[in-house]
C-alpha cells in the first residue's frame, strides 16, 4: 500500500519536473513563435524582456502549490482566470458523460453477465465489442457531421449561443443543446469499455459457491445480483478502472476539440497552438494531479473493498 503511494508520488514528481524542465531545455519560445513570420527584428534586450527568467524548480512547485499559476503569455491574463472559465464546462461535460456511462454500463454489464450466452448477452456483447473499436474521434466527427451539420438538430460548436442573452429556461435549454453531441460522444466512447469490464468481473464472481447458496436460500434475483454478486465484483472493477483514467482525460480533450467546447481541453490545445508555455505547464500538471489523485483514491477504495476477514 505504502509502496503504491510512493510510486504515485514519484510519478507526480516526474510529471512536475517534466512540465518544468521541458520548455527550458528546448529552443524556441513564445516570442520567437509570435514574431517568427513577421518582419520585426528584436534586439537581444527586447527579446530578453519578452522571455521571462525561469524560476528554480522549487520556486515553480511552490508557486504552483500556492495556486499562483502566473500569467498567460498569449492573453496576458492570470491563468487562474482562464482555468476558472474553462473548468465548469469540462466538469459539466465530463460528469454528465462519464457518470451516466458508468451507471448504464454497470447495470447492463451485471444483467448481461447473468444472462450469459443468451441471445441478449451475445448481441449486447457483440455490439459493445464493435463499439469498443470505434474511437471518440470517429464518433465525434460522425455525430458532428450527421446530427449537427446534415440534420441540423444540434448546434455545431461551443457551449452557448454566442452574443445571446438568454436567461432562465431558455438559457438552460441552450446549454443542454450544446452539451448533447459532445456528451453523447464521450458517453458512447467510454460505455463499451466499462460494460466489458463489469461483465467480465461479474462473470468471475458467478461460479462462487455463495451465489448458488444465496439462490438456494430463496433470496430474490435482484438482491442476489446487486447486493451479493455486483458488490463482490466491485474490487476488480475499481482496480482496472484506474488504468482507464488517463485515456478518459484524453477522450475529453479530443471531444472538446472536435466540438470547440470551451473547457480545459480546448484551453490546452489553444495554448499549444499559440506556444503559450505557462498555460500548457499548468494545465498538464493539473490534469496529471487529477489523474494521479483519482488513482490514489481508487487504490484507497480498492484497499477498503479487499476482504480482510480473520480467515484471510
Amino acid at each position, binding site marked *: 500500500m505504502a509502496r503504491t503511494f510512493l510510486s504515485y508520488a514519484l*510519478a507526480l514528481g516526474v510529471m512536475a519536473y517534466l512540465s518544468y524542465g521541458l520548455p527550458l531545455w*528546448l529552443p524556441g519560445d513564445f516570442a520567437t513563435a509570435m514574431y517568427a513570420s513577421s518582419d520585426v527584428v528584436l534586439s537581444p534586450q527586447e527579446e530578453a524582456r519578452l522571455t521571462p527568467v525561469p524560476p528554480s524548480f522549487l520556486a515553480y512547485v511552490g508557486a504552483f502549490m500556492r495556486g499562483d499559476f502566473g500569467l498567460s503569455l498569449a492573453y496576458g491574463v492570470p491563468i487562474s482566470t482562464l482555468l476558472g472559465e474553462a473548468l465548469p464546462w469540462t466538469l459539466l461535460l465530463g460528469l454528465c458523460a462519464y457518470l451516466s456511462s458508468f451507471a448504464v454500463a454497470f447495470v447492463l454489464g451485471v444483467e448481461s453477465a447473468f444472462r450469459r450466452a443468451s441471445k441478449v448477452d451475445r448481441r449486447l456483447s457483440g455490439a459493445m465489442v464493435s463499439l469498443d473499436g470505434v474511437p471518440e*474521434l*470517429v464518433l465525434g466527427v460522425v455525430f458532428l457531421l450527421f446530427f449537427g451539420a446534415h440534420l441540423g438538430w444540434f448546434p455545431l460548436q461551443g457551449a452557448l449561443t454566442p452574443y445571446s442573452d438568454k436567461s432562465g429556461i431558455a438559457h438552460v435549454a441552450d446549454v443542454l443543446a450544446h452539451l448533447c453531441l459532445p456528451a453523447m460522444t464521450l458517453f458512447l466512447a467510454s460505455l463499451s469499455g466499462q460494460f466489458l469490464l463489469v461483465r467480465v468481473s461479474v462473470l468471475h464472481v458467478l461460479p462462487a459457491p455463495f451465489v448458488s447458496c444465496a439462490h438456494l436460500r430463496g433470496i430474490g434475483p435482484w438482491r442476489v445480483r446487486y447486493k451479493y454478486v455486483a458488490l463482490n465484483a466491485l474490487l476488480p472493477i475499481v482496480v482496472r478502472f484506474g488504468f482507464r483514467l488517463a485515456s478518459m482525460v484524453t477522450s475529453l480533450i479530443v471531444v472538446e476539440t472536435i466540438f470547440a467546447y470551451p473547457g480545459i481541453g480546448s484551453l490546452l490545445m489553444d495554448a499549444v*497552438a499559440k506556444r503559450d508555455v505557462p498555460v500548457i505547464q499548468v494545465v498538464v500538471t493539473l490534469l496529471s494531479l487529477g489523474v494521479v489523485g483519482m488513482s490514489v483514491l481508487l487504490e484507497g477504495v480498492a484497499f477498503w473493498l479487499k476482504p480482510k476477514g480473520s480467515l484471510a
Partner: protein
Amino acid sequence: MKRVLREPFFKVGVVLFGAVSALGILALFWLPHDPYAFVFEPLARPSLTHLLGVNDAGMDIFSELLVAVQNTLMFGVWVAGISVGLGAVVGMASGYWGGWIDAVLMRLCDILIALPSVLVLLLVASIARPSGMELGALLGVLSFPIGAKVVRFQTAHLKETLYVEVALQMGASGWYVLRRHIFPALAPLIGFSFAGRFRFAVMAQATLAFLGLLSPSEKSFGMMIRQGMQYYYLDIWWHWIFPPVVLLGMALVGVTFVIFSLEGVLDGRVKGVLRG
C-alpha cells in the same frame, strides 16, 4: 488455433483489417499522384484523375490517404514492437532472476504505470515537436510496464514447472532455458499483447495527429480529419473527411475483433489485463 479460426469475430476482424492493409500494400507499388505535391487545383471535386478530390493545399486526397494507411500501420508496428519487446525482456529477466533485478525493474514499472502517459506525450509533443517515430518510441517506452508485469508473472510461474527444473538439473544455462523453454511458452501471450499495443498505438497516433501535435508533413488519418474538419461546412465531408474516418474505424474495429476473439480462446489468464 482452430477455435480462433471458427470465431465469426475473428473472420470479420481479419477481413476488415486486411482490407485496410491491402490499401497500404497497394501504396508501396502504386500511387496515383505524389501525395506531397501541392500542385493541383485546391478543393477540386472528385474526378477520374483525383478519385477523392483535392484538399485545400492542392494535394491529391486519395494519394494522401494511401500514404496515411502506410504510416498508420508502420507507426502501430513500431510502437507495439518497442512496447512488447521491452515488456518481454524486462518481464522475463524480472520473473526469472528475481531478487534485486526484479525489485529494481518492478519499481520502475510501477512509476511508469502511475505516470499518465498520454499527458507526458502531450507535453513532449506540444513543446518539443518531435517526429512521429520519436514520439512513437516514447509511447512504446511509456507503455511497456503493464506487459512486463504480465510476462513476469507468467515467467515466475513457468520457472517452477517440472520441465524447466529438469533442464536446469541437466546443466542448462539461464539463457538457454529462457530461450528454449520460457519464451516459446510465452509466445501466444506476447503475440496477443502485440495486437493490443498495436491498437493502442493506432488510436494514439490518430488522436495526437488530430490535435495537431504531429508534424503536418506526416500524413495520417488524424491529420487528414483535422484538415478536412476546417471545411466541414463545405460539401466536402463525403470525399475528404469520411474516407480517413471510415478507414480508421475499420482498422480499429478489425483489430479489436481479433483481440476479443483471441481473448476468448486464451481466456481468463490475460483477460483485460493488457488493455490500457
